[in-house]
């Protein structure tokens, strides 16, 4: 049981931290596969990485239902922290969530369980925030798409290993689809719905 006395703090400097984090996420989305750093410092509850905490404090508000995976909702600490600092409602229905926080890979349900948006409002989809082991070392993934000059190679250790194969549903769904932000500590990589996975490198 977490009381308010044990809650980690929010951003030290709310406005500038939120602005710089927003900029990092925007750059990551505009340049899929590129590694962006999040400078802002905030307190984070157990199990939540620095980057995830900063993104939560920047993008979540009372209009964005949040879905937490089993790891994140293991204790009420994360939900309480989100509630106190962002006033975002935590939902158990992943199909209406604006954001989903995934703390560990087995907690990632089938992508069909999340919101894809509608053809009229493709923005009403769920953005997955997936914490991964590494975004600098590991197997290579080759991506192409808008925002990528030719192809880009992302080296990352990602669970689940078939994430990119599962994201292939974005191709048929367009303009609907799922956007993913991969987080490791304070670095992030965005895989928006327009990015296409070509091949696994060596």
């Amino acid at each position: 049981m977490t009381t308010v006395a044990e809650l980690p703090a929010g951003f030290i400097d709310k406005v500038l931290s939120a602005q710089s984090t927003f900029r990092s996420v925007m750059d990551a989305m505009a340049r899929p596969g590129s590694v962006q750093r999040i400078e802002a410092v905030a307190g984070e509850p157990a199990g939540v990485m620095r980057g995830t905490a900063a993104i939560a404090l920047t993008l979540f508000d009372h209009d964005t239902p949040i879905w937490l995976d089993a790891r994140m909702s293991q204790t009420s600490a994360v939900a309480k922290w989100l509630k106190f600092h962002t006033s975002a409602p935590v939902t158990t229905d992943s199909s209406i969530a604006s954001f989903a926080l995934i703390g560990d890979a087995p907690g990632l349900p089938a992508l069909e369980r999340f919101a894809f948006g509608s053809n009229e409002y493709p923005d009403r989809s769920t953005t997955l925030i997936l914490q991964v082991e590494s975004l600098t070392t590991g197997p290579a993934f080759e991506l192409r798409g808008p925002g990528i000059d030719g192809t880009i190679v992302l080296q990352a250790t990602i669970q689940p290993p078939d994430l990119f194969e599962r994201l292939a549903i974005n191709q048929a769904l367009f303009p609907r689809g799922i956007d993913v932000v991969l987080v490791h500590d304070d670095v992030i990589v965005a895989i928006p719905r327009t990015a296409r996975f070509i091949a696994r490198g060596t």
Partner: protein
Amino acid sequence: MTETTENARQAQRKAAMAVLAHSDAADIMGRLDAVALPAHENLREPENGLVMVRGRIGGDGAPFNLGEATVSRAAVRLSTGEVGFGYTLGRDRQKARMIALCDAMLQSDQFAGAVESGVIAPLRAAMVANRNRDAAETAATRVDFYTLVRGEG
């Protein structure tokens, strides 16, 4: 802690908030400077926002939205774990932070006495004196209307 002491403390905090919210930021700061402050951190950075002020026409009238008012709020946590909250009308973020700090200290057995005697009590005395003076000034200009018994009837 028993329920009665808990209630007494709640009442004390409530009374202190009423005093602090109506006091000038400069006065609170002046008083607070004289008190030894414990180590603390901002749990929620002071921030401004809007609240909708609702009113009623008469006691049984339907509520309506009167308009929006600016408020500032803050939450401060002492190193010993007490969390204080401060809300005040207006955009003075420092005032909200000082109110939150006072609220946190009021919950700590170690600092409650110092804050109560060093900050809250003098401010309350000043507030009561001001109110009494205004009331006296108003009372001095009071006009009693009375009607002589009229001839009809």
